[in-house]
């Protein structure tokens, strides 16, 4: 991803942060961690509370493999270390929400498939896969989650719409629910195609 799409992604993502900043519930409780994955996997922004979150710029190499599996592996480790589970002495965090955004397909498919059951066992509030642009393959994301959206284009309008929907999905994550119950996502706007 480069040129307009990556620019649009950056604008869209930072726009999402600004949108969330106006939500008092999110301002009080939301923490965000950003992992980028291409040939290398980086925790671009370590878990940061929304109020301290700084605008980020995501860079993308022009070509090369997409290590989605390695990114999931990093995510698993981070969840183990950073997520606070409730006990009689400690208040638990809300269920974490995972958004996987890609314009390609995993190059490390074996590792990717190895991580999927572990990710599923993590009890995320929701996992949303987003396949952006013509080259993104939906089938791999479907292995990870039932909630997959496809963006046909990656212009800034589509991305803004997408991130606005992400924002409303995040807001759904802080409501009390039954143990083991699955969260319902708000209906996506027309620009997004839900893959069934």
């Amino acid at each position, binding site marked *: 991803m480069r040129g307009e799409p990556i620019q649009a992604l950056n604008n869209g993502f930072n726009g999402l942060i*600004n949108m969330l*900043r*106006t*939500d*008092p*519930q999110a*301002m*009080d*409780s939301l923490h965000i961690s950003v992992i980028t994955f291409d040939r290398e996997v980086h925790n671009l922004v370590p878990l940061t509370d929304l*109020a*301290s*979150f*700084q*605008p980020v710029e995501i860079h993308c190499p022009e070509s090369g493999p997409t290590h989605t599996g390695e990114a999931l592996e990093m995510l698993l480790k981070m969840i183990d270390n950073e997520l606070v*589970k*409730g*006990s*009689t*002495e*400690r*208040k*638990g*965090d*809300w*269920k974490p929400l995972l958004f996987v955004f890609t314009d390609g397909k995993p190059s490390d498919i074996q590792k990717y498939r190895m991580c999927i059951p572990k990710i599923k066992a993590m*009890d995320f*509030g929701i996992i949303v896969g987003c396949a952006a642009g013509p080259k993104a393959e939906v089938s791999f994301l479907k292995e990870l989650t039932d909630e997959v959206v496809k963006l046909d284009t990656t212009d800034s309008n589509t991305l803004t719409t997408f991130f606005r929907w992400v924002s409303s999905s995040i807001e*759904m994550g*802080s*409501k*009390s*629910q*039954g*143990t083991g*119950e699955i*969260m*319902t996502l708000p209906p996506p706007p027309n620009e997004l195609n839900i893959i069934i």
Partner: protein
Amino acid sequence: METILKQLLDEFNVEQNKVVDNTLAKLMHNAKINALARDINSLKQQIIAIFQMYREKEEFKEAQLVITNANAKKHYAYSFDLAQFPNIRIQQIKNLDKVGLTFDPETSSICGVPNMALTMDLHLVFINTLEENPTEDIKIIPFIVNADPKDLWLNKPSNQNDLYAKVDSDKYAGAFLDKRIVVASQRGRSHAHEGSFRDDHFYVSALPEAWAVVAVADGAGSAKFSRQGSKIATEYLVKTFDNEVLLHELNDLCLAYYTTAPAEAVPPAPKDDQPVSAATTNIVNEPIEEVVKAETAEECLLKVKSSIINILYKSVRDVHAKLVEFAKQEDILLKDLNTTLIFALVKKFDFGYVVLTFGVGDCPINVVIGDLQEVHLLNLLDIGEFGGGTRFITMPEIFSHSDMPLRFAINRFDDFSKLMLMTDGIYDAKFITENKLEDKERWNTFLQDLGGQNEDGAKVDFLTDEHIKDQLLTWLDFWSKGNHDDRTLAIIY
């Protein structure tokens, strides 16, 4: 010297040969040439110095300078770390006064209290101090002032024309046996922000045979019609007890349990490892299965206990059945009505107050004895690993789970100063974790908080009843970061 001459010859395309070498050798000692070469060197130094100066400015301009976010109405201080740019001096920062912050060039720091939320670009006007006639340059950095979360909350009234509409707050004060009760229920900010309904509900009623009951329920935020679920759960629960025959039977059973039965059936002395407190002679919370193994004398008591619990159990089952029926009749899903439920069914006997309780979900029932001599949590809480995770009266699986008997408790107190039922909107903010619900220090703070020791000065005056329900409702408006759920608190005092 020689290098300079050679570079010069290269520049002028003078080919190297013997004549040139000889000429060079002679000029090496020429005074004029030497003086000119020194001048050239010095000029070069000056040029490179100017270059460095400009380069530092350009580097500073390009450097990623991260300035921490500010929060509206909160004091802010930030010092620029210019160690990497020793000659750069920030003269002023334009736009900063827009938010009410000031910049001190001497210390390179920003401070003040930002007066509003804003995302903007700061224009840093800077110079290089090495320049003779410094020229100002501008570096732009993004700056974020977060809003005060208190200012972000909207208070939209709920639509009273909607299905199962409910008022945004409710309150009640009245008699409860020979004591008083005050209850208030306030819609949470998270609901007010969206104009959605309060999901909590409560119901208080005096019953035949001198019993009284209070029920509190917290509808799940994730369920569509939980506001109706909590309403049905509390109101219907109370209705199941509005039955003279049933309560008469309950009278006899309680009498048997606390008077006749213990004298005849209970082993003469309590076991050493089970201290029996003066005021609470019987906090029953052991699972029935365990007790079954005990000796025959205790079995008799157990039978009585089992009969009491079965009466309560039947009521709870009826509530569940009522919710199932309602969902069916309205053609909605049962889980759309998801709600927790706690209740206390109380009667004053000659031998003290009998308090029968039940709970499913994460709302506690607590009793405070005397001046905090004792404080007990009377119900089992369902608190998941994750925030907001719990169980509901609407879940059929709770009835088949082995912990069902633990949800009921039979207690007797000579007297109590407060019996409280609260939803997690209160418990999360004031007690935070389950283990603090029996912590006397925490309870002391909580009771003082109710007594007016809080930042709003909101006081609930238990001595003069006149405005108590309004006072409690006002008190419920307390601010607690991250806790904006509906709040319901019932206090028998």
